[in-house]
C-alpha cells in the first residue's frame, strides 16, 4: 500500500518541512532525515540563495514538493506562469509526487494567499478534478490533494467534505495528502466525527500524511502549525496508518518554530505507529 502510483511508487518514511531557521543546522550538521518537504512557492524564483540552498539539500536528501497556491478549486483556469515555474522546479527537485490543497484562493486574477474552503457541490468537484488533471498532465508528475482545515460551510453544499474529497479524487484519478490534523480541526469547527471522515477516505489513494499542531480558541480551532501534535490527532494518525499501512508522513511546524532537534523529535513520534503497521503487515 505505501508505495503506490500516487506517490511515484516510493516508500518514504518520516519527513519534516524545510524551513529557513533550520537551514544552518541542516547544512552544517547533516542530520539524518528521511526526507524534506519544501513549499514550492519559496523556490519558484529566478535565482539567489534559496535555490543554492535547495541544490545543497538535494545533494543529500530526498525532497518532496508541497504547494500552497495552485488553488485546484478556483473556478478559473490555472495561471500559465505559475505552471511554467512549477514545472521548472519539478525538473530541478525530481519530486516523486507533488501536493497542493483542495481549496480555492484566487478569482479574476486576484490572489488571497489563503486556503479558502470549497462549496461541496458536484459542479465544484467537476471543475476541481478537471484542473487537477490539467496540472498533472502539464507537470508530468503524480498529484496528491490535501484536505484543508476550514472555518465555514456553505448553504449550497450537496455533500459532506469527505464525500467531496472522494468525488474529486475519483474524477481526477489522483492521490490524497491526508492531513489528520486538518480533519481534527474541521471536525471540531463543524461538529462531525473525525473517524467517520477518516474511515471514508479511499486508503489506496493516500500518497502521504500530514500531522501538525493547532491552536484552540473559545469558539473555534485554528490550524496554526505552531504546537506539538496533540493526542487526539495522534489517535487519528494511528487509525490512518492502520488503514493505509506504512505511509510517508510529514510533520508541519511553521510558526514559532523550535530547534531542528525538537521538530524532528516530534515528527519521529510517528514511528511508534508506523512500527505497529509494519509489525501487523509482517504477521
Amino acid at each position, binding site marked *: 500500500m505505501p508505495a503506490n502510483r500516487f506517490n511515484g511508487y516510493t516508500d518514504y518514511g518520516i519527513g519534516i518541512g524545510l524551513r529557513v531557521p533550520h537551514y544552518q543546522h541542516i547544512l552544517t550538521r547533516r542530520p539524518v532525515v528521511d526526507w524534506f518537504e519544501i513549499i514550492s512557492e519559496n523556490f519558484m524564483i529566478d535565482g539567489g540563495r534559496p535555490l543554492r540552498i535547495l541544490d545543497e539539500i538535494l545533494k543529500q536528501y530526498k525532497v518532496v514538493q508541497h504547494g500552497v497556491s495552485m488553488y485546484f478549486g478556483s473556478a478559473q483556469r490555472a495561471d500559465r506562469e505559475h505552471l511554467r515555474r512549477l514545472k521548472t522546479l519539478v525538473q530541478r527537485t525530481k519530486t516523486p509526487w507533488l501536493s497542493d490543497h483542495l481549496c480555492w484562493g484566487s478569482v479574476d486574477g486576484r490572489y*488571497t494567499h489563503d486556503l479558502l474552503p470549497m462549496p461541496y457541490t458536484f459542479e465544484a468537484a467537476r471543475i476541481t478534478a478537471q484542473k487537477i488533471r490539467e496540472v498533472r498532465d502539464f507537470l508530468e508528475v503524480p498529484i496528491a490533494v490535501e484536505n484543508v482545515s476550514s472555518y465555514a460551510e456553505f448553504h449550497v453544499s450537496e455533500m459532506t467534505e469527505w464525500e467531496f474529497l472522494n468525488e474529486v479524487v475519483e474524477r481526477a484519478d489522483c492521490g490524497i495528502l491526508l492531513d489528520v490534523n486538518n480533519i481534527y480541526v474541521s471536525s471540531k469547527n463543524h461538529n462531525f466525527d473525525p473517524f467517520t471522515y477518516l474511515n471514508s477516505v479511499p486508503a489506496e489513494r493516500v500518497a502521504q500524511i500530514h500531522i501538525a499542531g493547532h491552536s484552540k480558541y473559545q469558539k473555534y480551532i485554528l490550524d496554526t502549525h505552531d504546537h506539538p501534535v496533540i493526542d487526539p490527532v495522534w489517535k487519528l494518525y494511528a487509525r490512518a496508518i492502520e488503514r493505509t499501512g506504512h505511509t510517508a508522513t510529514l510533520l508541519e511546524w511553521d510558526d514559532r518554530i523550535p530547534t531542528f532537534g525538537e521538530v524532528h523529535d516530534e515528527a519521529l513520534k510517528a514511528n511508534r505507529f508506523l512500527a505497529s503497521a509494519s509489525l501487523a503487515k509482517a504477521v
Partner: protein
Amino acid sequence: MNLLSIQRHIARAVMTPLTPSERMRHVAPNGRSQRAVANEIIKPNDRLTSFERLEIYNRQYWFRILSGFSEDFPGLRVVLGDRLFDKIAQAYLKDCPSRSFSMRNIGAKFGSWLRNPPHFAGSRQQLALDIARLEWAEINAFDGKRYDALRPEDFTNASPAKLRLKLQPHLSLLDLKYPVDDLVLRVRKDSTELSIASNTLSERHKGKRSVSVAPLLKPTPIFLAVHRMDEDVYFLRLEQKEFAILSRLRNGKSLGAAIEGVLRKNAMPDEECLLLIQKWFQNWSALGWFYRGTTDSTNS
C-alpha cells in the same frame, strides 16, 4: 449560485479592509452589507454566526497580507512608525491586491503607487518613496535572475559603437534623494530571511516590531546599485557619471553612445575621463553586472 459567483462574493468580502479594531466591517465601502453576503452564502453553526465565520477569513487575509508586506518593507515601517505604515500598507493593498501566485511579488507596484497622490506620508513622502524603492530593489537582488556574466576579455575587442551590454536582472540602479542605504542596512541587520509556510493561520497581526526611532535624515542625493554577488545582496554607491552610463546601457544604448553622452557633459579632459570609465568597467565586469545582449555584441 455557481462556483465562480460564490468565489467572487467571498473574495470581495475577504479582501474588504478591516475596521480599526481589526474586525470585519458590517458594510463594505461600496455600501454592500457584509452580513447579507455572509448570511446568503455561509451556514452558521452552534457557536458562530455566518458573519463571524466569514470574519475569520477576512481577518486572516489582512493579517497575512499585511505581515508579508511588512516583512518586505521593514525600513519603511521604522521611518513611518507602525500606525502610518499600516495605513499606507492597507491603502496600497486595497488598491493593488496581489495578482501573483507568490507573496514575493506583493510589493512590486508599491513604488509607483506611492508616487501618486494622496501623499500619505506627508513631509516624509520622498523619504518613504526612496526607502520603498530601495527595499523592493533588495528583494529583486535577493532572488532575481543572474545570467552568466561577461568577462572583461569578452568585450575588450568589441566595437563600442555596436556593442550592447545587458545589465543583470538582479541589478537595480537607483537615484535617491535621501541616503537611505545606511538606514535600511541597520534595520536589515535585525531581520532574518523569511519564507512562506504552509496553510498556517494566525490570530495576531504579525510583522510589527519594536523599533528605535529612525534618525532624521537630511536630503542628500545618492546614486546606488543594488545587486547580488555570491548570493549576498549589496548596496554600492555610484558616482553620478557611473550611474548615467549604466542607466544608458540599461535603456539599450550601445556602449559607445552610453559613454559619449557622459563625455559630452564632462568638464574633465577626455583622456582622464576615459581612464576613469575604463576603471569603472573593470569594476562592473568584476562584479558580473554584464551579460551578453543579442545584438552585435561580438563584432570586433
